[in-house]
């Protein structure tokens, strides 16, 4: 069964450093997403990406965040200057519109720890 792959599974970074979280969505999917889950809290939508541009973003996705699809397979989330409160599990997801809504396929997540 096709999977969404995320690397690394766990990343530790110092406050103020830049981090890039990487995702390989399912190859024939057209829509890509990032979500985050702060420990013990609900999963929160960050951003959706379609046709090489951001389609929708939440209030969380401020100027410190950016997304990119640098090639035909990777989808990245960059945090320019990490803060302690950025520590969370970050999930990548992809979906394929087929005339109606469909579920999303999520990756296993990257646990980001900012120290």
């Amino acid at each position: 069964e096709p999977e969404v792959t995320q690397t690394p599974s766990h990343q530790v970074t110092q406050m103020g450093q830049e981090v890039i979280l990487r995702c390989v969505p399912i190859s024939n999917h057209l829509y890509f997403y990032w979500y985050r889950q702060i420990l013990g809290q609900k999963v929160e939508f960050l951003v959706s990406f379609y046709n090489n541009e951001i389609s929708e973003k939440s209030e969380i996705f401020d100027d410190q965040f950016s997304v990119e699809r640098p090639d035909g397979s990777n989808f990245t989330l960059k945090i320019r200057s990490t803060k302690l409160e950025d520590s969370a599990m970050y999930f990548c997801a992809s979906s394929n519109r087929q005339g109606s809504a469909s579920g999303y396929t999520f990756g296993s997540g990257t646990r980001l720890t900012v120290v």
Partner: protein
Amino acid sequence: AQSVTQLDSQVPVFEEAPVELRCNYSSSVSVYLFWYVQYPNQGLQLLLKYLSGSTLVKGINGFEAEFNKSQTSFHLRKPSVHISDTAEYFCAVRVRSGGGADGLTFGKGTHLIIQP
């Protein structure tokens, strides 16, 4: 904007007993509804979804959910749980709009604990 309420943060159930995990949503527009499961140290896996048609939706691992428009609910049920069902369960909604770009709004999750 839409919101999802999962009133029970934790539900303990004995093995082979039935279980219902509650989900209520609010939205000014029509929505699609989803249940996801998260096993320890894993990602989110789709259990089932309601898009249209029959209000009773069957998913994987013996789970089912019923969409009740008048009560704006989408409760998840299983007639007989197993130890392996121990996990976090998330209800989510997404607005019915054109395209697949809209993000999901999740509830806070319900931790299902199966006791032997």
